[in-house]
Every structure is written in C-alpha cells, then in structure tokens.
C-alpha cells in the first residue's frame, strides 16, 4: 500500500509538470493551430534564468519573477518575429519554424548560461514528509499547489476577463472574432506570452527536484506533446488529465513492471487510447469538408 501511495505521489508530481507543458501546447494550438515545439524551451528558460539570476545575487522569489518575465518576452518574440511573418503557411511549415526557434533558444541558453546541470534549493527545504509509509518532498506539494493555481487562474482569465474572452473567441472562429473588432493577431501573440509564462513557472517549480540544463527542453516538449494528444488536442482539461495520467503511467510502469521500459508503458497506453479513441480522451472528432 505504501508502495502504491509512493508511486502515486511521484507520478502526480511528474504529471503536474507534463500537464503544464501540455497546457501551453493547447493554448497556442487553440488560438493559432500551431504545434509549438519550442514549448519545452520555455520550461528550460524558466528554470535556467532563475538559477543564474539567483547566482547573480538576486533573491530567489525575485529571480523567479525575472525569469517568468524574460520567458514571456521570448514567447512574444517567437510569435512576432517567427510565426506571424509566416502566417498563411501550412501547419507543417509552422512546426518547422517552431523547431528552428527551439534549436535557437537552446543554442542561446548554451552560450549565455552554460552546458552544466543546475538546481536551486526548494523554498520549503528538502526534508520529506511521511504519509502512511510513503515519502513526499515539500517541493512536490509546491508543484501541485502551483499547477492548481495556474489552472484556476487560466480558467478565470479565459472565462471572466474581456481579454480572455477575446482569446476564446479568436480560438473559436478567427474571422467572426475579427468582425466584432477583436485584434486576433494580438490575441495570438498573447496566447504565446501566456503559454511562455505557464512553461516558465513549470520549469521553476520542477528545477529543485528534477535539475535543469540548456538541453532539457526537447524531452519536455516531447512529453508535453504526448500528454496533450492523449487528452485530446485543443482541450485544456484534456491537457491536464493527459499530463497527470502520463506521469502516473510512467511511475507505475517503472515501479511495478520495469524501470528500463517505463516510457514504453506510457507509449503503449497512448497507442491503445488512440486506437480506441482516435481523437484522444477529450478531443472532438474533426469533420472533413469536401
């Protein structure tokens, strides 16, 4: 039983991070139909910038805020300088652009920062809390709380503010949104900025447990993409559920079956889900017009 609880805790911790990456994918996809493969780089930038800002003598909480702001700038620039100029290009062309941006950001991080692994101490210390024979790190609790706050804040932003509703309108029907006077280009830019912020926070929360380096982005983008597709692309609830499930499958697979093949179990689950539900768990069936 304590084993089961342990795997659940670690699964949810990892899953919460995947969920945040997947949420970033979903947000950008909804407004612009772009699969942003640079999403993992946002997570990397969040963690790395915090590490180096803190090393430069800025207090940790302030360093985290600086990191989020810098990452948001990158998100906005990614849209303005790389995605917006190619508007009207096919989705696959836009994907290659985001892959190019991801390579660029990784290279930039390697030059500006370095190529080593880094971490910073958790705000809550690292003395594990014992629950029923299972141990949970205080930072894991911080990750849960942080992820929950982000999801709730995003929900409030999208459903309760005018800007959020304009973004929703842009996602639902760009032409109709433009007709009622919404600046859709600005809304898409904003979705990139918000996604970058979500990614950065995820990176900052994960760093005390998982370490960070200039190259962690690719792996996170991969996991986030899988999580988003598992949940059903374009659905924020799906992204969160997909992320948590992916984390749980990995940890249970590693714990009960084989640590070597922990990713294999997650992949097999993904394939089984897609074969039975071709649009993911919460995805809508696409309709093809002839």
């Amino acid at each position, binding site marked *: 039983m304590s084993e089961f609880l342990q795997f659940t805790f670690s699964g949810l911790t990892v899953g919460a991070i995947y969920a945040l990456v997947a949420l970033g994918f979903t947000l950008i996809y909804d407004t612009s139909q772009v699969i942003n493969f640079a999403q993992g780089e946002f997570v990397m930038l969040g963690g790395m910038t915090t590490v180096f800002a803190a090393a430069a003598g800025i207090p940790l909480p302030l360093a985290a805020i600086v990191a989020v702001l810098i990452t948001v700038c990158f998100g906005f620039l990614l849209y303005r300088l790389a995605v917006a100029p190619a508007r009207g290009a096919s989705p696959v062309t836009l994907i*290659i652009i985001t*892959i190019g941006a991801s390579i660029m950001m990784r290279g930039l991080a390697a030059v500006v920062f370095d190529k080593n692994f880094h971490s910073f101490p958790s705000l809550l210390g690292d003395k594990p809390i014992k629950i029923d024979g299972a141990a949970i790190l205080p930072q894991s609790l911080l990750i849960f709380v942080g992820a929950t706050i982000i999801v709730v804040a995003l929900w409030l932003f999208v459903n309760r503010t005018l800007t959020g509703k304009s973004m929703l309108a842009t996602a639902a029907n760009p032409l109709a949104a433009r007709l009622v006077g919404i600046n859709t280009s600005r809304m898409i830019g904003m979705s990139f900025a918000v996604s970058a912020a979500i990614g950065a926070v995820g990176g900052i929360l994960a760093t005390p447990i998982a370490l960070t380096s200039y190259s962690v982005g*690719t792996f996170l983008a991969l996991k986030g*993409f899988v999580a988003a597709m598992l949940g059903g692309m374009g659905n924020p609830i799906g992204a969160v559920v997909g992320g948590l499930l992916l984390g749980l499958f990995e940890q249970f697979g590693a714990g009960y079956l084989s640590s070597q093949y922990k990713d*294999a179990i997650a992949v097999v689950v993904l*394939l089984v889900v897609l074969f039975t539900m071709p649009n993911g768990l919460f995805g809508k069936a696409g309709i093809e017009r002839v």
Partner: protein
Amino acid sequence: MARRLFASPYALVGAIVLVVILLPLILTGNFYLRVAALVYINAIAVIGLNLLMGYAGQVSLGHAGFFGIGAYAVALGPTTLGFPVWLSLVTGAAFSGLLAFVVGRPILRLRGHYLAVATLGLGLLIWMVFNNQSELTGGPNGMQVPRLMLFGWRAVGPIIWYWISGATLVFCSWIALNLINSPTGRAFRAIHDSEIASRVLGIDIARYKLLVFVLSAVYAAIAGSYFSLFDGFVTPDTAGFLRSIEFVVMAVLGGLGSILGSIVGAALLVVLPQALTVFHEYEEIVLGLIMIVFMIFLPGGIVPSLLARWRWRTA
C-alpha cells in the same frame, strides 16, 4: 522546350546521375566525399518519407525507428544469426516493411497530429528496444558493425560508399518518380487533397496509405543499413526522436511533394552543421535562424517555392 524537358520525370533522374558522376571531379578529398555520401544516404530516407508526407499527406515522426531497424539489422544479422551482410540488409529492409505493414493499418486510421504522435510513439518503442536490450545491442554504448564484403573485398572508405550510396539514390529516385507518375501516385495525391473525395471516387484509401507507409519504411531501413555500414558503428541514437525530427525537417525544408526537394533538404541539413562550425558555440543559434528564415521566405519548401517563382517569371 526547356520547360517540357524539365517536366519530364526522367530529366530529374538524369540530372541526379550527372551530379553523382561529376561531383567527385570538383570535390576531391575524403572529407567532401564523406559528406556527399552522408547526403545521399539521408536523401534516400527522406525521399521515402516525402512519398508518405508530401504525396500521400500522412505525417510520421517516427521514421528514425525504421532507419534504426536497418542500421541494427546489418550489425546484428552477422553477429547473432550468422547472415552475410548483404542478406542482413535485405532482411532488415523486409522486417522494417513487415513491421510497417502490421502496425500501419491501425495507426494510419489516425489523422493529422494524432497520426504524428502515434508514429512518434512507435519510433520511441523501437528506440527503447535498441537502448535496453544491452546483451544484444550493447545498449546505449552501441555496437560495432561488420564491414560489407563486395566480390571478395571489404567495402570501406568514403570513395566506395560515395558510389554505393550515389547509385542507390539514383535507383530510389527513379522508383519514386515512376510511382508518382503512375495511377498509384495519383491516388496518393487524391488522398492528400481529400480522403472523403477519394473514397467517393473508389480509391481504397486504407490500402494506398498502407502501401506508401511500407515503402517509406523500406527506404528508411535501406538508408539506415548504409549509414551504419558506412560508419562502422551504431548507437541507439540512430533510431532516436531527434533523427526522426531531422528527417521531417529535411523533407519540409527541401519541399514536400518534390523528390529534388528531398535531396536538397538532406544536403542542406548535412552540409550546414559542417559549414557552421566556423561559428563555434553560436552554431546552433545560426542553424535555428536559417531554418526559420527559409521557412518564412520559402514556405512551400526550397525547391517548390523557387520553381513557382521561376515559372511565374517566365510565364
């Protein structure tokens, strides 16, 4: 006149033959021949992927898996089964095609990004097998690949592999061009444009998708076998996610739906990192920047976009 010559599919095969024959006259030295051989080997895999993506419109983010099957087949065949290298290569290609055939039917029912993520998963599974079955494959450290014996002598060195890969590239391009200009090729393009419309016209879309998926898997496996035979060593990264992405980038950058584009895309992505070493630590930044700039200004891919411009100007 020039246009009609250009439009003939065999003009392109002729042009490739000429380039393969003439290039060694300009680029002497083992380094250049090595790079050229790598371009040809990558181009073989990318042409296969382009048939799938550019013509039939089905995305694959897992093609390095098939590439890896070919690469490990020539390493494992001789050591564990006692097969000669050439037979291992054929077996690898056949196995890769068979795997594509078996998983193709359920996977190809998926569309768009869901197909992308399913093929990505398939590629990851293949990579994991190579990475984890250490007793057979040496795990993450990789394994030695026996040399290919041709008519009693060992095929080693850039010059020999330049000619082997060049000849195979010509052959593979010829097959691909023949296919594209056949009723099957037209069926592919119909499926790309609209699955429903093609089904209404009586095209068995499941069968055609499966056919092109299997063919592209065989192309990738052959390229993979060449790659590891040329290198003499193979690691699981040969089948890794990054290589799958690299193939897709080559296909899209060069131009989807263009065989010449596949070769140009492969050439660009093999040569660029070599050329960019002058930028030292800024190499990745420049590479990413070049990819973005190319895609913004030539969104249809290098070859189709330039051709469209040239046609527009001469019209």
